[in-house]
Every structure is written in structure tokens, then in C-alpha cells.
């Protein structure tokens, strides 16, 4: 096989695949990516891991049709250093390939393409069209709250729930690690889904989704099948294994009646929390205490070895005084993942989750558990 492609097309395609092949055990077949000619003017790139399959097609001038399986790592590293010139790849008899751009040439190791595992082809039953922006928002505003604790596998992903409405659909994305929870709700366009359903998208796929959506269409078809979720754009698809477990009943932990509610400038609040965090050593439970009284919010932290910190913010508040502590990192994550100028904190009691939300965008909700000291 032999082809030539514009450097940009080639690097974009590789960039989408780069997180997927096996990185540690380079002798594994899974460390390779598959390149196949599609007619004479395109090449299809396939990268697979146990959790994720990525297929993307890029324009190329195919001189000799065929396929190649090349070491993903070598290909990424070499391509990054190539000069700005059209890239050509030519298979060698030992399954390696010549990678040439301008006057630079690499020889990239490869294997017999037949040794690559079969590609996972999508067989979706239900599909919903989702704006690319919403998926990016999902990764950014929700993805951070996923658990990486292998002891709780059902939390190792984003729970994606689709409720078909008349003519369109309500899509809800939720992630939690049991200490905080992030939820995004959006109305989206047409859905070909006869019934409501929910899937847990594996966390490895969530990380790849952002790269996949880089330079993609503005609308993505999210398809659902028995064991996977498929995100499809015109150039290819990303298939992510589903975690086939029950997601916890998160609706139950979203509190409704609140005793305390206050609004505060989001940036100023986040900065106050960061200031307090200075006295918390990196290896400790990073606790910040909020004291709400009269028209001011005090943000405090203390450490027996590193001292105390205290910042005040003026706010509009005349309700009952409140004193509550949070894990500083969870609080900062939540504040950072919210859109908008202001943030609304609502507290029911000291053992229920506190909701942190944008008062003018109910679609994004962050929940964090307070810490009892």
C-alpha cells in the first residue's frame, strides 16, 4: 500500500487516534493502528482498545491500494516531527512502512494487518442527533466528576440518558464519584428513539470523545446499541463500550427543599477558595469552611502546621447564618465547570448534597457533599 496525504489531514486523523492504542505493552497487536485505502482518494484509520474503537477517514491520493498495521506510538512520534510537506506512506515487505515528508524519512515498525483484531462495526438501534457543542459541554462540565475507583465500576463513566419528546429529545448526562455529582440537561433535535433509555459511557471513551470532536461536524449522531454507544460524524465514528451496570438512582440525591440559598460572583468565589487553599498542604483532606452571616460570605481554611486563611466576599444575603465545610477541590471543580457570571448555592442541611448552579442556566447542575468536621 502506498498513499500521499496533506500533512494537516494526516495529523488530524492521527490526533484523534492517539490516545487509543496500547501504550505500555508495545508488542501487543493493540499497539498498532490500521490504515486502509478507501478507493483511490481516501484512507481509513482504525484504532482500537478494549473500551474504544475509532474509525476516521481522511482524503489521500492512493497510489497502491491495500492496508497496513503500523505502530501507533512510532507513527505519532514521527509525524509530530515531520516538516511541513505532503506526507507519504509506503508499505515495505516486512510490514514496516516508509514515512516521508520533504527530505525527512522515517521507517515505522508494523505488523501483518491480518493480525489486527476485527473492527467493531456499529449496529445501532436508537439514534439521536446531538449538537457537537453539547457533547463538548458534557465532557467539560460533567466528565470531571466521573470516578476512577475501580471498586465502583458503575461510576467509571458518564451516564447518558435520552428521553424522546414530541419531535425532539431531552438528553441528560450525569457523572458522579459518590462525593460530588455533575449533571447537564439539554433539549436536542430529532430523535429516532421509540423509548427512553440510558447508558453508561466508559470513562476512556469520554476522554477520546473530546479529541474525536476536534474539527468534526456541528452535529453528531449518537447511536445506541446493546453494548456500546456510537458517536458518528461524516468522517467516521467513535464506538465506546458501555458499562453494563445499573447507574445509581441519582435523582434521589438532588435535594429540593432548601434552608439556605445564596448567590455569589462565581469568579470571585473561586478565587477566595483558591486563596484559602494556599494553607492546605497538598497531601491532606483539603477542607474549606464557608461562613455565611449578614451580608458577607467568609471563606476560611486552617492547617495546624501551615496557618489560617480568611477571605471575605460581600453578598446579598439576609437569611439564617450558615457554617459548612467542603472538600476544596470538589468546590473548585464545580465552580469551574459552571457557565455564567454568578453561582447559586443551595443548602438543605449538613448531611445532604449542596447544589451549585448557574442561576440563569438550569441545564447545568453541580452537587457536592459537605464534610462534617
Amino acid at each position, binding site marked *: 500500500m502506498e498513499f500521499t496525504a496533506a500533512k494537516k489531514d494526516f495529523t488530524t486523523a492521527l490526533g484523534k487516534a492517539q490516545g487509543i492504542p496500547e501504550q505500555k505493552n508495545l508488542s501487543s497487536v493493540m499497539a498498532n493502528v490500521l490504515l486502509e485505502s478507501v478507493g483511490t482518494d481516501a484512507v481509513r484509520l482504525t484504532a482500537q482498545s478494549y473500551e474504544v474503537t475509532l474509525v476516521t477517514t481522511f482524503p489521500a491520493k492512493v497510489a497502491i491500494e491495500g492496508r497496513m498495521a503500523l505502530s501507533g506510538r512510532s507513527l505519532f512520534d514521527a509525524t509530530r516531527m515531520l516538516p511541513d510537506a505532503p506526507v507519504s506512506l509506503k508499505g515495505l515487505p516486512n510490514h514496516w512502512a516508509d514515512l516521508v515528508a520533504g527530505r525527512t524519512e522515517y521507517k515505522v515498525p508494523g505488523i501483518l494487518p491480518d493480525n489486527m483484531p476485527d473492527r467493531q462495526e456499529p449496529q445501532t438501534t436508537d439514534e439521536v442527533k446531538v449538537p457537537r457543542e453539547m457533547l463538548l459541554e458534557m465532557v467539560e462540565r460533567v466528565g470531571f466528576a466521573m*470516578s476512577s*475507583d475501580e*471498586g*465502583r465500576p458503575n461510576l467509571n463513566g458518564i451516564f447518558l440518558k435520552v428521553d424522546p419528546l414530541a419531535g425532539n429529545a431531552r438528553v441528560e448526562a450525569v457523572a*458522579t*464519584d*459518590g*462525593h*460530588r*455529582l455533575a449533571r447537564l440537561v439539554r433539549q436536542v433535535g430529532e430523535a429516532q428513539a421509540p423509548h427512553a433509555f440510558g447508558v453508561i459511557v466508559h470513562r476512556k471513551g469520554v476522554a477520546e470523545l473530546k479529541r474525536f470532536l476536534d474539527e468534526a461536524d456541528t452535529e453528531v449522531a449518537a447511536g445506541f446499541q446493546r453494548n456500546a454507544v456510537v458517536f458518528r460524524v461524516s468522517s467516521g465514528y467513535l464506538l465506546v463500550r458501555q458499562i453494563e451496570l445499573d447507574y*445509581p*438512582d*441519582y435523582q434521589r*440525591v438532588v435535594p429540593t427543599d432548601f434552608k439556605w440559598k445564596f448567590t455569589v460572583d462565581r469568579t470571585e468565589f473561586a478565587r477566595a477558595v483558591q486563596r484559602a487553599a494556599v494553607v492546605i*498542604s*497538598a*497531601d*491532606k*483532606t483539603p*477542607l474549606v469552611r464557608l461562613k455565611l452571616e449578614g451580608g458577607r460570605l467568609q471563606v476560611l481554611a486552617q492547617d*495546624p*502546621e501551615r496557618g489560617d486563611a480568611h477571605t471575605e466576599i460581600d453578598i446579598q444575603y439576609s437569611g439564617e447564618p450558615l457554617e459548612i*465545610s467542603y*472538600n476544596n477541590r470538589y468546590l473548585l471543580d464545580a465552580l469551574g465547570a459552571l457557565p455564567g457570571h454568578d453561582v447559586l448555592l443551595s443548602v438543605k442541611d449538613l*448531611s*445532604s*448534597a449542596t447544589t451549585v448552579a448557574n442561576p440563569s442556566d438550569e441545564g447545568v447542575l453541580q*452537587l457536592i*457533599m*459537605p*464534610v*462534617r*468536621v
Partner: protein
Amino acid sequence: MDSPRIRVLPQHLVNQIAAGEVVENAASVVKELVENAIDAGAARVTVEAERGGLDLVRVTDDGCGMTPDEAILAIERHATSKIASAEDLAAIRTLGFRGEALPSIASVATFEMATRTRDADAGTRVSAAGGTVRSEPAACPPGTSISVRDLFRDVPARLKFQKGERTQSAAIRDVLDRIALANPRVHMSLISNGRRAVEHLPCERLADRVAVVFGREASGETADVAGGRDGVRVTGVLGEPSRAKPDPSRVVLLVNGRPVFDLAIRRAVASAYGVLLPQGSWPVAVVRVDLDPADVDVNVHPRKSEVRFRSPREVAGIVFGVIAEAVASAPWSASTTVASPAPAGGASAEGRMGGASAGGPIDPAWTGAREAIALPWPAPVEAPPPPLRDHDLFATPVASRGRMRFADLRYVGQVANTVLVCEGDGVVVFVDQHAAHERVNYERLWRGLSGGGIASEPLMFPEVVRLPPDEAGRVEDAVPSLARAGFEVEPWSGDSVAVRAVPAVLRGRSAAAVVRECLAAASDGSEASGDSRIRKVVATVACHASVRAGDPLDEREARALLASMDGIDLAGYCPHGRQSVVVHPLPAVLRWFGR
């Protein structure tokens, strides 16, 4: 046939029966005779044994000796110089007093004694065999020498049950070692089958004798103990906990100078080491308890290997208190100490090493092999010899001069994602990241507990944890301890519990495993006090909250961990007693390469 008639037994038979209790084997002969020698004020005791003592045990001392009359009387039953009245029995300060030993031994062996008092011109030789006693004047040095031959020859039943020669020899050595520990100033030697097996030179300090008896390798760096109250004085020497081995005989208890076994006190010693000591392991420790003889009954056991205290709990409590205090200030507890920069003149690191202590005992941790080899052996009596054999001269968990601040160390890197390697002033420091972090977390949790309490984080989704059936039944008991540690646990259905809150320090780790272990710790053993339960729970939480072996740490995290170790007590040991810090003096490391 005549029915048996009750009759008074002949004296010789009575003695043989008594011998059954007193003289069990050759080692018990050695014990009785050496104790007599000590009671006689000997400064030097020599024991000779042949074929494990079954052929011959000879104990020679330079004590006060006996007059001819006394010598004959001595082998009469219940003849003793040590007590005269019932009042004396209540206040025994000597090792022997029952007057049973010599007649008992004489009844089961061929017995010969040569003795002379210091001011007598001639000595006496007394020999006894098969119930007849003969006495004649003889020439002998001052003191007493007793030979016991052919032990149990006339008691085949007993002879049949004697263990092998090797075992007998080991038992003799063991007996001698224990008495040597009780009497560091007495020169004791053992000659076994004509070969010198033991030579305990007189020592001024118990620590030196401990070093000789156990070896510095086994004891590690020792700490002296001294304290007491209410008329109970506790002294002794404690070995390093990191050298602990699962052998309880390493804890030697001396009550009024008598080596005895006492489970309660032995346990008190171990608990005083607390978390430093791995479960089931014992450090080298010699603990001497001195108290009013009226408060302790030594007349419990014919061999006097056990005693009965008037108030055993109180004595154990005092021992615990004194030893816990000594442990807290022991060099290995501070563990963050290494060599301080040398005083002016000792510029090179090499010089610093050699400059260790002019008059005081030589610190094994910081003494190069060359210095040790240069020492004369045997050393003059006035200056007890430092131990020669120490295979671990260079690697030491602790040393004892000046404090090292972990935060000041130059972080070099992480090995095997497990060990942090640092460079300090003239030292290379290895830190086990998990053990160190565990200790830090443990101390913080413990401080938190004694301060405001441990921060607890309610779980968004209560976790239901299944327990083994036997543990499920004990949940109720464990709930209060768990609550203090920051857990909120309540019985769920069947063998499950619902976990509603976990200590905040766990930071997002799954509660199931922690809760299972903590429940096991909290409901462990009915005798465990609430305090030791909560300690176990806190240690479990600390373990789970800590970085693990195999977790890659970036430099920032590693530095934060090192910095957090300053100001933590016992930073050199994890809460389960494993060592977490090893310090190699740089010169020793360079010497690996001949530099």
C-alpha cells in the same frame, strides 16, 4: 496379701521425689547451682558441662564458701543459710531459700562439693552418692565448686525422658544467659565439652550485657529504661522494634533479680511498644522489676520460675507506663535523627564518622567497621567491650545525633513507584512512601480525634457492604468506634451494612474494603479495650487513605509527603510497626565503590 500400710518415707526417697520438681534436667541443675553461687556473692562463676550436663555439671564460684559443718548441713533437706524464720520467708532477697536444691540434686546424681571460706586454711570436700554422705578436709581455692555427675543414673524413668545433648546444652546456655542478664557485674563462663562456649565479661551497664547476650544484630539500638512509682522500680534495656521477631523468649523479665516468666508483664512490655511492634513479634527487652519482697511471692513454684505479685495489675500497669515513656523517647522513635554536621575540624564526612563519642558507648549505627576492628578484644574489665559483630553497621533506620528535617532533603526520585530516594547532609535516605504516608495520616487522624474529631464525609449514595456472617453479628458493638473514626454505618438487611459516611481523608476511595477491615478491627477480640480498638480502626483508615506502593508520585507530591513527615512522631515507622525510613551514611555508600 498385705494391704499397703501408711508409713513415713525414708529421707533419700523424699529427696528423690522433691528432685522430680526441682531437678527436671541438667539446665535446672545449672540454674540451682549458679543461683547459689550468686547468692554466695560470687564475682565469677564458671559452669562446665559435659554431654549436655548429663555426664557432668560443675559450677565453680569465688563466693563466700562454707565451713565444714555448713558443707555437710547443706545437703540436708531444708537446710539453708538464706532464711531462718517465717518473717524471712516473706521478705526474700536471695535467689534460693527452700533448702531443697542440693539434697534433691544429690539424690539423683553423684554429688561432690569442694568449698572453702576465705579465711579458712583448708577446705572441705563433701561427696554424696546413693544416700551416703562423706566429708573430708581438702585443698581448694576459696569459694565453692560443686560437681554433679551421672545425673539421673539411678532414676531411669527420668533419664529416659531427657532430650538430646544439643537441646540440653542450649537449655543450659539459656539458663546461664538469663542469670547473666540479671547479674551484669558477674563474670560468667560456660565450658561445654571442654570448649569455651560462653564468656560474659563483667559489665557496668545492663545494655552492654544485653548486647553480648543477644548480639547487637538482634537487639538493634537499645534504649535504657528507668522509672517507677509506688515502691515498684522498673529498669532495663529495650531493643529496637524493627528487629522484633516472633519469639517471646526475647523478652526477659527479672523480678528482684530473679529471671521469671510472667505473661501479664510480658504483654505489658509489648503493648508499651504499641504500634511500633508488628503483631506477634517481640523485641529484645530485659526488664527488671524491683519491689518490696513482701509484695511478691516467689514461693509459688519449686523452680521459682514464676512469681505471684500481690497486685499484678498494678505492677503490669507501672511496667507499661515506664516502658511506654522510654519507648517514646527512644532513639528509634525519634527516627528523624541523623548525624549533625561535624564540629569544626571534622570537615570530611569520614572524619565525622570516626569522631563518634570519645568516652561514651560507641554508637553502632555510626561506627565504621574499621573503628570497631581496631578495638582490643577482650577489652579490659573497666571498659566493657562494644559488640563486634554487627552485619548491619551501615544501614540503619535511625541514628542519634541532631535532627534531620525531611523537608530539607533533596528529592532524588522514586524507585519502583514505591521508595522515595533523597539526599541529605552526608546521608542517603530511603523512604517507603506508603508506610511513611500511613504514619502521617495516622498521626493526623489521631490528633484530629483528640482534637475536634475526624472529618466525616456523607456519601451521596450510601454503599451497602456485605459482611462475612460472623462479623455481621458484631456490627452493633463496632458502631461507636467506627463513628469516632468518621464512619456512619448502620445494620442493613441480613449480613449487610449501609455506609452513609466515611472519613473525609479517604478521598473518594471505595468504602467497601475499608469498612470491612475497620469492622474487623473494631470488633476484634472481646478483651481489646475501646482505646485499642479505635487505634486499630484509625490505623486501617490511615492505611487506606495513603498512597500505595506502586503509585507513581510526581515530584510535587513526593515533596509534600516528605515535608509532612516533619513534626510527626515516629515518622520512621508505619502504624503497624514496619520501618518506613532507612538512612545510609553517604561515606558508607561511597565505600561500596571503593571511594
